[in-house]
């Protein structure tokens, strides 16, 4: 019995939570706006705190999870889109699985080496440059398309770096959807090969 418990604890204990939440004392329930790699996005959805799931790495039996993924896709009009998706839930509903995505129009040859071109940029997200896509299960079963704005305080990625600081995505966002508003959003994510999926 003690052996099996030890083995179990070794396997269970190998996971690591890489999300760091530091409460913003000026905003009830939100994390601070940071660019130090805390791996979290928080904001208000219709006034209630919404946050991303924890980034968990390691573990022999459990799959690693990340709060953010970056992909590239083509929309129905064959426009190339950079897609940044944050997965999360209301602060008080940790079992729901919702997301907020940014679809941003990019050139066809846009690669992960070009992410730096967005560093320091503030973009108005309207139907011409891209759009937000959101799903909040407590509000609607449908995916909703929204507009808004986003500021990339840091947007860096170097695929040649194998250890240490490979990349960073941090900034602010606001988005309006038909049935909800996402306000006071702030995000701070480390970017590794796990998050960059193109």
């Amino acid at each position: 019995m003690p052996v099996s418990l030890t083995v179990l604890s070794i396997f269970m204990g190998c996971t690591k939570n890489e999300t760091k939440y530091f409460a913003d004392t000026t905003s009830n329930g939100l994390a601070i706006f940071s660019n130090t790699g805390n791996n979290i996005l928080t904001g208000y959805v219709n006034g209630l705190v919404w946050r991303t799931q924890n980034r968990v790495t390691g573990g022999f039996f459990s799959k690693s999870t990340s709060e953010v993924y970056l992909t590239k896709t083509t929309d129905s009009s064959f426009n190339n889109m950079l897609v940044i998706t944050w997965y999360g839930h209301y602060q008080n509903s940790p079992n729901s699985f919702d997301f907020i995505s940014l679809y941003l129009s990019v050139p066809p040859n846009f690669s992960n080496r070009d992410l730096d071109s967005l560093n320091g940029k503030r973009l108005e997200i309207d139907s011409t440059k891209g759009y937000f896509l959101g799903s909040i299960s407590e509000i609607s079963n449908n995916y909703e398309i929204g507009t808004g704005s986003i500021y990339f305080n840091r947007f860096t990625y170097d695929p040649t770096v194998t250890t240490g600081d490979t990349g960073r995505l941090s900034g602010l966002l606001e988005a309006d959807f038909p049935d909800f508003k996402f306000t006071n959003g702030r995000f701070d994510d480390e970017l590794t090969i796990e998050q960059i999926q193109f």
Partner: protein
Amino acid sequence: MKNCLLLFILLTFHRCNCFSQVYIEPISGYQSDIANHGKFHQINSGLQLSFKKSSRYELIARIQKSWGLPYHSVDSSFTANSTLPLYEPANKTIISEAWYLSLDHRFILKSKGKNHQFSILLLTGISGQIFKVNYKYDKVDYTILNPDQTQKTGGVSIGTGFEYMWLFKNDRLFFRLTLDAPFMGEIAYPSSFRSMSLLAFNAGYSFLIKKKKHEK
């Protein structure tokens, strides 16, 4: 905090009966933090009881409060709202304060002169530090990047120093230069500052309140 104060008072009064000469010593001075590149400065005020055990050693019970001088700097705040400027400075003021409950040790060095003495000080006790952070900026439209927040820290306090004392008939005037070690462990919140290591210059005056028995 209350328990610490009670223990401190009990220890002090217990010690009071064991020593032949007792001085009460108001102290005041200035201290500067060397752990944060000189950001924080404080005015000291305190009171200590000195119990003279021998001509070479005194035990000192010290209560001290250090009043912080404001440190001003500017952080960055940003907004995603494209109708507003992207960046706005956020004026930051940090006031750092400290308190001490300490049992210090005064090791008196041999001196040729009768009217003065030099001592090595060993400071041992508990102390606390507080960093009060205040920002002035547009809190409605802007968000501060990597903000500081008010922090408290404390623990065992250790320090050392050097003291010059001018001896009068009964009373004494002294000047001391001391350095506190920073606390073990870091502040848990990602702050732009860390716990202080304070270099202090204090002056004090010793009033004799209990003489040796044969002097009565």
